[in-house]
Each structure stands twice: as structure tokens, then as C-alpha cells.
């Protein structure tokens, strides 16, 4: 399979790899996927509690190149957005940006799920209502 240049770039130079302190009240952690499906994404956001702006985002992904690229791209897009803006990121945006072929669309869905899961976790810690239900991962 031929990969797009953008997928290759994220694979070769993944952005924002790492972990944030999952016990911190200003960090939201989303872990989606399952090893038997061949994809597990962990995405974390660090939010400025005063402004609601995502100041940092980190990821770790077990999965194919497209899954790595989708989550790497997601962290780039998350930084500097408000939590509400972050919820507007759709998997189709990721598909378009990375030129993912149809068989890899599930990777983008997983990235969207990871974003939502991280935000949901953050909001839970903050004691606010979960505005958006966490989407179920498509196996």
C-alpha cells in the first residue's frame, strides 16, 4: 500500500509523543481501541483550568502507520484550542488532511474517539457534566 506523504511524515517524525501526569486534575486521558484489533491509542490533554485552552497534548499509539499519523495529527490540532473547539474535530477532517484510503478510515475514527475520551475524562475530573457521550470504538 502506498502511504501519503503526510502519513509518512507523521510516522517518521511523530509530534508530541509522550505521557502527561494522568493523576493531575487538569489532565484528561483517553485510551481507546484494543490490542486484538491492532490499534490502541492513548491521547492526553493538559488544559488551563482558567481559560479552558488545551496547552499541551501527548499521544502514544500501538497501531499501523495511519493510526500513528492520525493521533499525531490530532495532538497538533488540539494544542491551542479550547475544549469546546476540540470537540469539533471530526474524523473526516483527519481523513482529508492525511489522504487516508477507505481501509484506514477506522484509524481516524479512533483518533476522534480518543479526543472525545480525553475531554470526557478531563471534564469528569473537573466535576462538570459530560457534554458529549464517549463514542464507542469501532472494532
Amino acid at each position, binding site marked *: 500500500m502506498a*502511504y501519503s506523504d503526510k502519513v509518512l511524515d507523521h*510516522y517518521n517524525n*511523530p509530534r508530541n*509523543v509522550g*505521557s502527561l501526569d494522568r493523576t493531575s486534575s487538569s489532565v484528561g486521558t483517553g*485510551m*481507546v*481501541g*484494543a*490490542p*486484538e*484489533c*491492532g*490499534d*490502541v*491509542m*492513548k491521547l492526553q490533554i493538559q488544559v488551563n483550568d482558567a481559560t479552558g485552552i488545551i496547552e499541551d497534548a501527548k499521544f*502514544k*499509539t*500501538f*497501531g*499501523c*502507520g495511519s*493510526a*500513528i499519523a492520525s493521533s499525531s495529527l490530532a495532538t497538533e490540532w488540539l494544542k491551542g484550542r479550547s475544549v469546546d473547539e476540540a470537540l469539533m474535530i471530526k474524523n473526516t477532517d483527519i481523513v482529508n488532511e492525511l489522504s487516508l484510503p477507505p*481501509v484506514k478510515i477506522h484509524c481516524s475514527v479512533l483518533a476522534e474517539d480518543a479526543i472525545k*475520551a480525553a475531554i470526557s475524562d478531563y471534564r469528569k475530573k473537573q466535576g462538570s457534566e459530560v457534554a458529549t457521550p*464517549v463514542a*464507542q*470504538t*469501532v*472494532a
Partner: protein
Amino acid sequence: MKSPIYLDNHATTRVDPRVVEAMLPYFTESFGNAASRNHEFGWVAEQGVENARKQVASLIGASPKEIIFTSGATESNNLAIKGVAEMYAEKGNHIITAATEHKAVLDTCKKLEKQGFRITILPVKGDGLVDLDMLREAITDKTILVSIMYANNEIGVVQPVAEIGKICRERGVLFHTDAVQAVGKIPVDVNADNIDIASLTAHKVYGPKGVGALYVRRRNPRVQLTAQMDGGGHERGMRSGTMNVPAIVGLGEACAIAQREMAAEIEYSRTLRDRLKARLEAGLDEVYVNGSMEHRLPGNLNISFAYVEGESLLMGISDVAVSSGSACTSATLEPSYVLKALGLGDEIAHSSIRFGIGRFNTQEEVDYVADKLIDVVTKLRELSPLYEMFKEGIDLSTVQWAHD
């Protein structure tokens, strides 16, 4: 060192230049139809075919009359299994095979099942080997055929073929073996191994694609097959169709070379394979060999790099041709059924790479691949949430994953 490096010799092999040399005249001056009995062109072609028949037979300890030429292993497997099923349908309707067989065997059996045959698919043990006691228990008075492969195409595991053949003979059941990966790589002897029918193909032994053979025993017992292709009655009526003379000559030459050079080649590929394995195990933790190391083709290594997904791994070694058992490299999004049959967890199956080392590989190539893999696996593990969890001491099997 040439790039890309080819380490996928279970998929196919490069045609040996000596094989090409032997084939060439049969495209041009010796172009005759081997079935033309009344002129020189036909005789020369027939001579080429009959010489090849001797070469193939000699490699597996058979008589030339027991070799039927086909278009390759898929046709050989189809002809063997469907041919026996149809010919011996009055004797019984039960066929036994194993979970790790090639699709050409499994799907052929599935088709027969739809036609009313009863198929038993034996599981394999954790090392990939068939349990002989289970085989004994599975045989009934309705069993007409056991089809168990000689060596597996993914994990290279070599089955106890001689013992399987012995069990079949004692019970009066025919024994077919898909010997595609074994012939020319390790000693195969149809008599010592108690084989009644065996499939083989040229392109796995440095011959051309599109030609193979079926060994069909003529004595003790005499095996009969119902032809699956009707026509001019070639190949003792078992396989009609004009002989593919240049390809058959190529198959013969490939077998002759394999027979002459086998001992040295086994030593050579085993040394390279063991070197690759040792380097990977020295450079990385959490690597697991899939399948028995003891009962294995000398050039095969199937290894899982835990916590790293196979396709992402292949992406990092794009100048190396290997295969992965990962779902992402197949159209079905299912990991390898062979690895799953060993009882491996899906995540280990997703992390597997198959190396097939062959005649034309060098130590320099193996060293390059080992170093490169160690780099890529290390990098991908830095990216892997599973490796992080493993390092934190979390047992991944106890984690509740968020999925349907």
C-alpha cells in the same frame, strides 16, 4: 548490497539463472508440443518433459511415472483432495486436515463439506505441530483422506509426516501432504515418509511460477484420482492440458539443483537464520519466536515483537521485503489464522514478522536487517502505550479495553 533486500522466500523465490538457462531453448528452437508423436519437434519437447519428470521424482524418492505436472500447488492440492473425494466417495465421506493448512487445502475441504463430505479440522499444539493422538482418534471407518502439510508457509513448522503417514497406512486411509515449502528445502522421501499424494511447486524452489506437480503413488497402495479437468487425457488422464514445456523443464532443473546442493544450502540458510534470531534477541526484549524452533525449516523465522504493530513495523523497514501476520496487511483485517491456531493472543499475532531466508541472501543483508529492525522496534515502542503499560508492570490481559 542491493536494495531492497528480499527476505520473503516463502512467498516466492527468484528463479535461479541456471534454471532460466535450461528453460530458454524450449521457448524458441525446441518449441514443440510434447503430445505431438509424429515429428521431431514433439519428440524433443517430450524428452524435455520426461527428463524433468525424472528430476522431480528423484528429489522426492518417487518413480517418474508417479509425477503429474500441474499449473502449481493450488491446482495440485485441489486435484489431490477433490480427486480422492470423488474417486473414493463410495468408500467414505470423511476427510481430516489441520487448522494451519494453506487456504488451497482448507477452502477445497470447505467446498467438499458443502457437497456433503464431513471435514475434521484438527487443531495444532502451541508449537504448531499436529497432535498424533488426536489424529488417531479422528480417523473413522468413513475416513478416506488425511491432508496435512509437510512444512508451514508462515511459521515453517515441519510436521511429523512419516508418523502421520504411518498412522494413515495402518488405518487404510490415504495420506496427502502439501509439501510446497518442504520440497527442495529439506529431505522429502515419499517412501520413508509414507506419503501417498504430495503437492509441490516450482516457484518456491528457485523455479518459474505457474508450474507444479503432484506425486501420486502407483503401488502399495495404488492411488486413483478423478480428473478435475477434462480434455486430451494428458498425464495418465489425471490432468488434461498441453504441457507447459519450458516451465516443466525449469521445474525439473530447479529440483535437480536442489537435490545436488541441499546439504550445503540447509547449513547456509540455517546459519543466517540463527544469526538473525540471535541478533534480534540480543538487541531487543520481549521478542517471541512463533512455532517450534526444533521442527522448523532452516530458512524460516517467524517472530513477534510484542507491543509493536506489524504494519507500522513493515513501514519502518520499507527497503526490506518480509511479510507480517498483522491484520492491517491483509484485506480482511483479521490477523493470521495460522498464528491464532497456535493459541497466540491477537496482539502477538499483530506483532509478527515472517522472514524467509534463501539461497541468494547474504550475511551482510541479514546483519543490516537485524540492525534496522532493532532501531525501528525501539522507536515504535517509545510510541507504544502497550509497552509503557508493560514497563509499568500492568498485565495487559486484565485491562478492560473500550471496544464493542
